[in-house]
């Protein structure tokens, strides 16, 4: 290892090494290291972890994947919100984030809207679940939402599962591998909101149960390897149990 780019090692094994990093831990020092990820900052010439994260060291490259934390809205994200408040021309949504989502009538209805004649409650009422997309967000104002688009709008049936937002990428998997595997194995429709709310739509309630359990396992074990295969086995085993019960 080069002296001016020394990586702080805990247990040096193979080329790639993973461990759980906690806030305050110095992950690397110097100029010769490349450090990527959300849960890390550079203070002086030291890279310091700020959130409990999964740290992957590969040669001179370090990736820090946070395991905890709130959801920060990002333009283009599809999220699942709950109507919390209704104004004259906009809905306020709880989007499981430090900031409230704002959905203006113009982004929900196609025709003209007259607040004197119409009441917004007719379209979305308080407590309704809505699949929406974030149009814009920049921390100085609350995120602006839209329900115009394919698959967006009020949720009328299904089960909502809540998970911790940093685990969402793991539920989707690399290029959607995890979520498409679950969909393929169960034949159910699943919508993953980037804010950690997941809609599961199944014709068979037992299948929905299996998916909910599987999602909870992914959330708990998001930092482990070989998860997709384990989840596939879990679903297949449980599916068989269901079929046996049917036969008996």
């Amino acid at each position, binding site marked *: 290892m080069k002296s001016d780019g020394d990586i702080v090692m805990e247990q040096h094994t193979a080329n790639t090494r993973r461990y759980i990093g*906690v*806030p305050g*831990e110095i992950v690397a020092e110097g100029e010769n290291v490349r450090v990527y990820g959300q849960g890390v900052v550079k203070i002086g010439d030291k890279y310091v972890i700020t*959130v*409990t994260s999964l740290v992957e060291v590969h040669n001179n490259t370090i990736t820090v994947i*946070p*395991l*905890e934390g709130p959801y920060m809205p990002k333009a283009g994200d599809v999220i699942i919100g709950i109507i919390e408040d209704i104004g004259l021309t906009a809905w306020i949504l709880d989007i499981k984030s430090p900031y409230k989502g704002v959905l203006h009538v113009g982004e929900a209805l196609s025709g003209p809207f007259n607040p004197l004649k119409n009441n917004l409650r007719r379209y979305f009422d308080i407590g309704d679940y809505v699949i929406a997309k974030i149009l814009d967000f920049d921390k100085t104002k609350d995120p602006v939402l839209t329900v115009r688009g394919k698959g967006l709008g009020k949720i009328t049936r299904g089960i909502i599962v809540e998970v911790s937002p940093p685990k969402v990428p793991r539920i989707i998997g690399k290029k959607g591998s995890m979520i498409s595997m679950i969909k393929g194995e169960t034949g159910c429709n699943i919508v993953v909101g980037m804010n950690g709310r997941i809609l599961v739509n199944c014709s068979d309630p037992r299948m929905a149960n299996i998916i909910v359990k599987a999602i909870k396992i992914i959330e708990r074990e998001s930092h482990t390897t070989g998860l997709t295969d384990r989840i596939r086995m879990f679903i297949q085993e449980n599916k068989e149990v269901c079929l046996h019960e049917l036969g008996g």
Partner: protein
Amino acid sequence: MSSEDKIVLIDEKGRRIDGRGPEDLRPIRMEIDVLKNADGSAYVEQGGTKVIAAVYGPREVHPRHLAFPDRAAIRCRYHMAPFSTSERKSPAPSRREIELSKVIREALESVVFTQLYPRTVIDIFIEVLQADGGTRCAGLTAASLALADAGIPIRDLIAAVAVGKIDGVLVLDINETEDEHCEADMPMAMAPSFNEIVLLQLNGVLSPEETSKAIELGKKGIMKIYELQKETLKKKYELSTRRSQVVT
């Protein structure tokens, strides 16, 4: 008080009333994720001192005027339960509790990246369940664990300990009895990775030499507590790895 009926705090062998040596900490227990409703929580037990901390947020500020346009506000409440002391303590916040809430808040503000979440608030609640000396230190230790558990970006964990002077001897981690009869009591808190002191108070008299010795002694204790904190945070994920082996 005459010298005859004075409590012997340190015997001729250098043992303290609870059997510890001058540089020994009390037995410590830490746990995170102890409360379901909080975004992050921690429980810290240090001898007879038992403290629980809960963190909510970052979330919307109410009342609105408390929000900052460029960073998150931090609100902190240090509170002693009415049953925490031998004589019932009035549940209303006392002068002392208001002061401790302030110094603890300022210590935590020095490590939290508040500028990441403008217009929000981070609420920290520290509840002393049982008081046996060093409650502000245990509270601070617990609060920083709870912040880490909530996934709020922090520069470092904060570990805290009280150093006292009894019969001319500097002792680490004083308990209630020692606190009542000691010549000096100095609670201190640090961000250990940066070797920064974030809280330092002194009750009583210490000479300049004693002060620097006391700080050195405190640092030793803090490093031990810091190691325990890191272990506690990592344990959450190690446990779930083990659980995964049972499931599959």
